[in-house]
């Protein structure tokens, strides 16, 4: 079940992306991954501490590698939601990384789901997001994230502190777009 | 303990009335079964053809041949007509009744009766409760695994009631208020023109990759595979199962009854049973997965794939 690819072209959601995610993608493209990795590592450790209930709900899937593939980003993310040793790393798409479950889709769609403001079932029925590998793990992650009070995106912003101040503005802008999805 | 019985379950398909009558006559005269379950269990629209005209005639013939006759009730009771038929079946005094839904329970509580496969009895408490209401005999749901059957047999022994398990034939996987036979032919249940009569063993439903999957019988969805518990019957007997049910199909049910009877009497092996069933044209592979707590379609222990 590893290395399963479920990429579709021309899916209807492609038209729903907004300009900002594209710009984020363009801005990040030249950034070497080595610079991103420590930020991700810190983020996932802090979230694991703040949001231990998320991992409780995952049960056996705390040992599952999740590949998160955001269409607009120049890299994919791989998450291991293990409370004892959480990992979040960035990889280039050509890297053929191994994963148990994958979730892919356009930035805005994934953003609204993570933000707790949209219904991922409805998104999936319209093929806006794609699930690969172990579907149960992906569904479980979705259900667990859905139970989080508030938004995990706010947590990320909190953790980042002053350094993420510009991101705060971007997020506020994106949230104003959520309703258009 | 009484000798293990072989039973002929209710005929779930809509065959022409004469064919149905002849089938039961032949079972009466030739099949080594101890009990015959009559009565329409699927669709109340079918009863004018056989139940209202031939049921008593067939019952008399079965009784004369020394077989016990039990009248099974409808599995899905919704409209007035369903309710009336269940009420009439449950209040007649001539035959013992097998209740297939809770509305039949409403009528038969307090008098001796049987519990059919379509009524969920999955635990000892439910069994004790129903036994206290007069249930003497329970035909278990096909999906129950060995472990559950065993636990229920222990309770049944305590209560002095009998457990029956289906060992041959397609098994009921779902019931609905909607008729899928009619739907396949772009009709509705009320305007079905009895299109289910054309499929004596159910209507094939295949996957889009043309793999046989399910079989439709009006409002009922059946497994495409026939269940065959020949290899499990010895274990079931040891658990204390007192009756084994054959579900009627258009194949030679007299021959099939004889095969299973021989197995019960230790006069043949289960390999021979399986071989004979194949010779008789029963679609292969067959299935025994439910018993083993595996996917129901699987044939555990005999090596195969779909």
């Amino acid at each position, binding site marked *: 079940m590893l290395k399963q690819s*479920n990429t*579709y072209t*021309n899916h*209807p959601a492609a038209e729903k992306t907004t300009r900002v995610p594209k710009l984020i993608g363009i801005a990040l493209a030249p950034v070497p991954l080595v610079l991103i990795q420590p930020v991700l590592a810190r983020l996932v450790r802090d979230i694991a501490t703040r949001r231990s209930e998320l991992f409780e709900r*995952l*049960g056996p*899937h705390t040992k599952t590698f999740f590949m998160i593939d955001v269409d607009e980003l120049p890299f994919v993310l791989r998450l291991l939601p293990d409370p004892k040793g959480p990992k979040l790393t960035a990889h280039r798409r050509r890297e053929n990384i191994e994963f148990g479950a994958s979730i892919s889709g356009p930035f805005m769609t994934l953003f609204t789901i993570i933000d*707790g403001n*949209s*219904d991922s*079932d*409805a998104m*999936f029925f*319209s*093929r806006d997001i794609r699930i690969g590998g172990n579907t*149960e793990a*992906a*569904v479980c992650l979705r*259900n667990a994230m859905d*139970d989080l*009070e508030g938004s995990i995106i706010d947590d990320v912003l909190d953790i980042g502190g002053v350094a993420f101040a510009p991101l705060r503005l971007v997020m506020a802008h994106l949230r104003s777009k959520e309703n258009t999805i | 303990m009484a000798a293990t019985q072989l039973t002929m379950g209710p005929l779930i398909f809509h065959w022409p009335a004469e064919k149905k009558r002849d089938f039961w006559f032949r079972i009466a005269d030739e099949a080594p079964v101890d009990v015959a379950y009559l009565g329409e269990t699927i669709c109340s629209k079918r009863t004018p053809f056989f139940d209202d005209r031939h049921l008593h005639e067939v019952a008399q013939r079965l009784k004369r041949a020394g077989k016990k006759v039990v009248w099974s009730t409808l599995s*899905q*009771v*919704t409209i007035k007509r*369903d309710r009336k038929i269940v009420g009439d079946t449950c209040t007649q005094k001539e035959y013992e009744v097998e209740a297939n*839904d*809770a*509305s039949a329970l*409403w*009528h038969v*509580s307090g008098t001796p009766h049987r519990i059919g496969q379509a009524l*969920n009895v999955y*635990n000892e*408490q*439910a069994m004790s409760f129903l036994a206290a209401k007069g249930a003497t005999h329970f035909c278990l749901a*096909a*999906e*129950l695994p060995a472990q*559950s059957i*065993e636990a229920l047999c222990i309770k049944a022994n305590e209560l002095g009631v009998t457990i029956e398990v289906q060992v041959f034939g397609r*098994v009921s996987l*779902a*019931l*609905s*208020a*909607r008729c*899928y036979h009619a739907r396949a*032919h772009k009709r509705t249940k*009320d305007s079905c023109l009895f299109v289910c009569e054309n499929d004596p063993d159910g209507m*094939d439903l295949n*996957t*889009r990759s*043309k793999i046989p*999957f399910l079989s*439709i019988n009006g409002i009922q969805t059946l497994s495409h595979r026939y269940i065959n518990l020949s290899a499990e019957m010895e274990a079931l007997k040891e658990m204390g199962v007192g009756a084994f049910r054959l579900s009627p199909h258009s194949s030679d049910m007299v021959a099939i009854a004889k095969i299973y009877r021989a197995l019960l009497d230790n006069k043949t092996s289960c390999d021979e049973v399986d071989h004979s069933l194949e010779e008789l044209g029963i679609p292969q592979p067959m299935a025994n997965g*439910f018993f083993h707590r595996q*996917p*129901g379609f*699987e044939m555990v222990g005999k090596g195969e794939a*779909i």
Partner: protein
Amino acid sequence: MSAQKSAPHELDKAFAAPELVCPAGTPAALRAAVDAGADAVYCGLTNATNARNFPGLNFSVQALEASIPYARERGTKVLLAVNSFATAPGSAMWREAVDIGARLKVDAIIVADIGVAQYASETHPDLRLHLSVQAGASSPEAIRFYCQEFGVKRVVLPRILTVPEISAIHREIPCEIEAFVFGNIGMMSEGRCSLTNYVTGLSTNMDGICSPASEVKYAEDEKGNLSAKLGNYEIDCFEKGESAGYPTICKGRYLTPARKEAYYAFEEPISLNLSSLLPELIKAGVTAFKIEGRQRSRSYVKSVVSAYRAAVDNIMEGNEPDLSTLISLTEGGKQTQGAFKSKKWR
């Protein structure tokens, strides 16, 4: 459609407002439902004792205990679904679930199994019992059986009855009626479906599992067709660009000799939406409206519950309800009134 004996013109004066019973798959969804105006929420424990035993969903005992005050302080009832079938030899788990409900003083337990109902009524005579749709009680006699034997106070009707049929049942039973008004519409009689067990070895009745995600595989061919399999069986295949669905067996497309093309043998993937029938349902004697969807996200729960809250309030004030926004939340964007509007559905 005024089958009621003295059908009044003014709904608000003659009928009490129906209770809005809403799904809570997680504590967050419970709070979302309460905040959106649910009169009652229903939930289950994280095990096989309820019919939505899905990964990452439901309540641990602690989570349930912690969530109940939130609902109660806001006047919302909490119903606990113990509505799968207690399975020998492990049925102690179902008895424990009932005991937990009694200890936490939930407002009612929703049961389907005769053994569970009997245990609850005998051990906790003060605990209110609702008869789950999983019991498949679709006739007055069946419902009366459960009322008489276990003191059931409310029946959740199967989604197979027309409004006149509900009205007729109402006149013949001694308990309240709860009816589904929105959400996933199951095709098979609840509590009597072993399709999932036939394919996966996991049982809806015994394990509370229907078409489990662990058995789902999507595979795309070189032309962009997406095949959706459950276990070994292909449940459907979607052409490139076509909306994909979850491979639920009774929502699949299959081949049969009577049809040239693969067709939805049981039903199209479609959601029930009875918003326009609400006044008729109230007149037919329905006193609780149930929204399906414990497996759906909290944002879905919030949207649907808010919309139905507004609709019920509008109706009770004698205004027309507007639920046009709900369509985007329905499965595949399609909705139906199912069996409720006409028996031709059958």
